[in-house]
């Protein structure tokens, strides 16, 4: 397969294939006069086809990629305006996140089959969103990165604002303003960096920075500017309150993408920029990040315990799990960084799946209120079994993908400061409390709400949506070495860069 990929700008193809699908849908829409029956289904099929094709092409890229090689690979460079280049390339970190994105998007399209309002616009936005997300991970030029990074805001903003729930406008603006304000500071820092270093190429910038291009004082400011953006994206405490609102209002598939991929951009940013480019500043801020991470884990877990809305509960649990990621990243140890990357991938799958689980019952009953449900296992045994698996993944049970990330980030943290690891480990207790309580309230017991009497188990489409996620959760949980070996080179490079600056 690797021969096939040679000579082709395969990353650009992976990135822009969904956008091509979007164009096709738009063209079809323009040529269609009136709404012919079956038209919406055609649009859905087209979107599904393009996302699956993207996944297949990304598999070719994956096959052509050599994880033993620590350099950026599959690179493409095209001169662009103002001395900047259109540059693409991936290392093992970026490649793994690209795979996560292309793997999840077709499942999101499947989960969007229930959308009835403005189907073609919805699908167009979704496909554009996929292009932008993949672009973030592939971009090797910092301006290009920024364009993709910010561009992703717009389709998500519209998806929440138009197809969302009752308070969608409030949620959409909260989401948009929070993330945009953070990013503007980052833009200023980027301009400064390009002006100083004379390049916008990310590998070149990294090299420049590691040769001491940015003095420790300058690093502090740059670090803070990037932090403002990434901390909101993660989201870290105390800038996390946009996430529960956004999740609650977003349509199911948008929630999946938000939790599974958009949040990962913050972690990716820390790993790509903050640690390798500003290692001195990262050292300075390590205690600060640790404090925020542990607070996030404890705070969000306890708040999750009190939620009455299923999606809000899962959103808060996401905040807690992202606390493990930031903690792991800033340990700068190989275990910590490996754990953080693993946790990002695993959280992508598990939280995505949990939002899909909520979507399944929401589609049937149109409420996310926990108290409405109860006893679902009686009528939906398959659903209950799948929901239980992902609940256990959320709890970090060994054997599911939730475990290796948590334990490795804590092992990393323990080496730096045992109390930080102990604080994070509290989350292990709380997560069991809120996740199992949610499960008990929704699935166990007897059906007391007469409206649930007719509720049906998973249909074929839902089966197809869940099975890949079930497999991914178990494979990553039982044989995490495959993933960890793959991401080893990136983790080592980041850890080395960080350790080099250790005072």
């Amino acid at each position, binding site marked *: 397969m690797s021969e096939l990929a040679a*000579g*082709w*700008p395969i990353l*650009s*193809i992976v990135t*822009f294939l969904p*956008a*091509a699908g979007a164009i096709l849908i738009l063209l079809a829409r323009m040529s269609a006069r009136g709404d012919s029956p079956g038209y919406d289904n055609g649009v859905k099929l087209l979107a599904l086809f393009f996302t699956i094709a993207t996944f297949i092409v990304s598999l070719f890229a994956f096959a052509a990629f050599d994880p033993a090689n620590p350099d950026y690979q599959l*690179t493409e460079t*095209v*001169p662009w305006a103002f001395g900047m280049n259109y540059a693409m390339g991936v290392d093992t970190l970026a490649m793994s996140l690209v795979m996560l994105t292309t793997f999840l998007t077709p499942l999101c399209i499947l989960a969007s089959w229930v959308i009835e309002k*403005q189907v073609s616009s919805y699908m167009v*936005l979704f496909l*554009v969103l996929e*292009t932008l997300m993949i672009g973030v991970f592939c971009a090797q030029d910092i301006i290009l990165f920024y364009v993709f990074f910010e*561009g992703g805001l*717009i*389709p998500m903003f*519209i998806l929440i*604002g*138009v197809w969302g729930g009752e308070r969608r*406008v409030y949620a959409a*603006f*909260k989401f948009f303003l*929070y993330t945009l304000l953070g990013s503007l500071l980052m833009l200023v820092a980027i301009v400064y960096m390009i002006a100083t270093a004379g390049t916008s190429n990310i590998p070149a910038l990294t090299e420049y920075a590691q040769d001491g291009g940015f003095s420790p004082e300058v690093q502090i400011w740059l670090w803070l500017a990037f932090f403002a953006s990434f901390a909101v994206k993660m989201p870290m405490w*105390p800038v996390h*309150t946009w996430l529960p609102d956004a999740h609650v209002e977003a349509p199911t598939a948008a929630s999946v993408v938000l939790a599974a991929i958009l949040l990962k951009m913050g972690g990716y940013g820390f790993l790509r920029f903050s640690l390798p480019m500003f290692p001195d500043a990262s050292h300075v801020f390590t205690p600060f990040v640790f404090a925020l991470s542990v607070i996030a884990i404890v*705070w969000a877990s*306890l*708040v999750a*315990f*009190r*939620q009455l809305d299923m999606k809000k509960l899962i959103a808060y649990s996401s905040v807690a799990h992202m606390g493990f990621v930031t903690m792991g990243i800033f340990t700068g140890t*190989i*275990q910590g960084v490996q*754990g953080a990357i693993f946790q990002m991938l695993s959280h992508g799958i598990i939280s995505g799946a949990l939002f899909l689980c909520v979507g399944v019952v929401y589609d049937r009953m149109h409420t996310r209120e926990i108290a409405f449900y109860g006893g679902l*296992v009686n009528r939906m045994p398959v659903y209950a079994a799948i929901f239980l698996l992902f609940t*256990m993944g959320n709890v970090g*049970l*060994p*054997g599911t993908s939730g475990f290796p990330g948590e*334990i*490795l980030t*804590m*092992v990393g943290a323990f080496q730096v*400061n*045992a*109390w930080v*690891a102990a604080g994070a*480990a509290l989350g*292990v*207790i709380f997560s*069991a*409390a809120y996740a*199992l309580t949610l499960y008990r309230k929704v699935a*166990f*017991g007897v059906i007391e709400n007469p409206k649930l009497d007719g509720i049906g188990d998973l249909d074929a489409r839902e089966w197809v949506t869940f099975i890949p996620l079930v497999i991914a959760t178990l494979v990553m949980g039982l044989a*995490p*070495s495959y993933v*960890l070996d793959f991401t080893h080179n990136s983790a080592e490079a980041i850890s080395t860069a960080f350790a080099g600056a250790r005072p």
Partner: protein
Amino acid sequence: MQFSPEALIVLAPLVAAAFAGLLQRYIGDKLAMGLTTASVGLSLVLSWPIFIDFVWGEGHERVIELFRFIDVAGFTSIWSVRIDTLSAVMLVVVNTVSFLVHVYSIGYMAEDPHRARFFSYLSFFTFAMLSLVTANDFLQLFFGWEGVGVASYLLIGFWFQKRSANDAAIKAFVTNRVGDFGFALGIMAAFICYGSIQFDAAFEAARAAPDMMIGVGEVRFRAVEVVAFLLFIGAMGKSAQFFLHVWLPDAMEGPTPVSALIHAATMVTAGVFMVCRAGELYEMAPLASGFVTIIGATTALFAATVGLAQNDIKRVVAYSTCSQLGYMFFAAGVGAYNAAMFHLFTHAFFKALLFLGAGSVIHGLHHEQDMRYMGGLRKPMPITWAMMLIGTFALIGFGIPGLGGFAGFYSKDAIIEAAYGSHGIGAQFAFWCGVTAALLTSFYSWRLAFMTFEGRYRPNPHAHHDDHGHDDHHAAPADGSAPAHESPWIMLAPLFVLAAGAIAAGAIFYPYFLGDHAGAFWDRAIPFHEGHHDFPAWVLWAPLIVTVTGFLFAVGFYLWRPGAAKAMAKGPVWAFLYNKWYFDEIYDFIFVKGARALGDLFWKVGDRRLIDGLGPDGVAATSRFFSRNLRKLQTGFVYHYSFIMLIAAVAFGAYAIFAGIGGGQ
């Protein structure tokens, strides 16, 4: 990865569990039950020869490595099957009890509509437990540890329609997580200090640097004490020791075979196993060992006092289990790891026997569990009665020093003597707790036996008749015996096997676990010390004396003067014991209500008022302004908007791709 019978022992139950669980709709209950039982039977058949080889043959230690689980910069866990004396003992305990429980459940669960699921869980539990005991590093141990935890959660909550069962399942899981909090930190500390989580490598590093310190800033401790202490927190959770014992009695909500397998014979002994496995660390950690001794001894006594006052037959046995686990821990704490393991071994037989016997009683009485509404069962259930009697004799450790006795006699007396002979921290305290608890054990065991089998049947005035059509049984026979039926043979047969163990396991294996051959038997599997043999006579005879005393008290209260027992049950001491020292109420107030209050505080005050109030809701006024305009987007504008965005993105991409074919590198 190559085939080996040792790996098959561990994996066979997993395969069967997966089949029974995933395909239950297609293969049906009978096949699911047969498959799972057969798989555990296979493990049983394969594991006994290994054990026998260690006892009478040339058993040699070996590690079969299967695949790399996690391997990140020295934090390495290889999925392995480690066979040495310690794991061989556990293999036969787990597989024997598990197999018998599978067989018993065929009868016990005969009317349950979810039998396939039940058997799938049982086999999954067996797999997790086997992977725990055959681990070669701390992470695999933890994997099994959590695996049995989730199996326990699923089985306690097996009757998912019962709210109390669900609550008990969550309580068990969360309480265990509190222990796991310590356990996980212990694993991390071991890795940081010793550079490995493989048992042998870590222990060797610990021996090489016995005085290594660990800590943050000025606060520094001896590393080995910290590691040993943190690991023991995990053991306290899993083995239901004082402070973290609260989940075990509630776990009796699960079906009785589950209680016998998980909450008596196997899973709850995992903590003891782990302390013995890490015995080399505890040898070097006198403070942590002292802590183990004191917690174990306290549990032994505390649980026995609570056991005195319980009316639910299963809860009595559950507290008894808790108490016996305390014995095992203080044995390990004073360095008598072999005595701890021996008691684990014998206890598995007689406690499983008592639980399955109790299950037989409950089955015979149509799910009545309250001993106040039993009595007179000896006549209708003579076999169950005889088996329970054997279990009782074994539990109270009946035997004559110098002559011999039931299984518990050998192991429990060895523990009490070891505590007496030790100079470790808390050892003398443990000795007196052990002797006192032996008295109480005898009393509550006979109380159980008398209330259940002797006297006249006392029907339950609040009995809610279940709809199974057993009405004919509820008319009590005139001679005062209970309207019960003896259990079917498939349930009685496992009792016979366990009873044989409860009678003879002590006498047969004493020379190897504790006696003359112990040094050769244990080899290097656990730290082994030649025990004393010159105890004063009163120490040797004390257990028998208190046991007989307890028996006489029970006879007095429950056979001769039943009125006295009723009067006693009205006192405040009784209430204190009946309410389990009010642990549940205190924990509920501090932890459950505390977590709720804190969660509400963070949510409603922290997130809503402070963070949102100061931050985005100031901006929200602005957003309301925008929102009026945004609504327009919902018609056709959104489509224009996205179209413009798309054109830009696509033009850009097309340019890149076409240019890239030429310029791509």
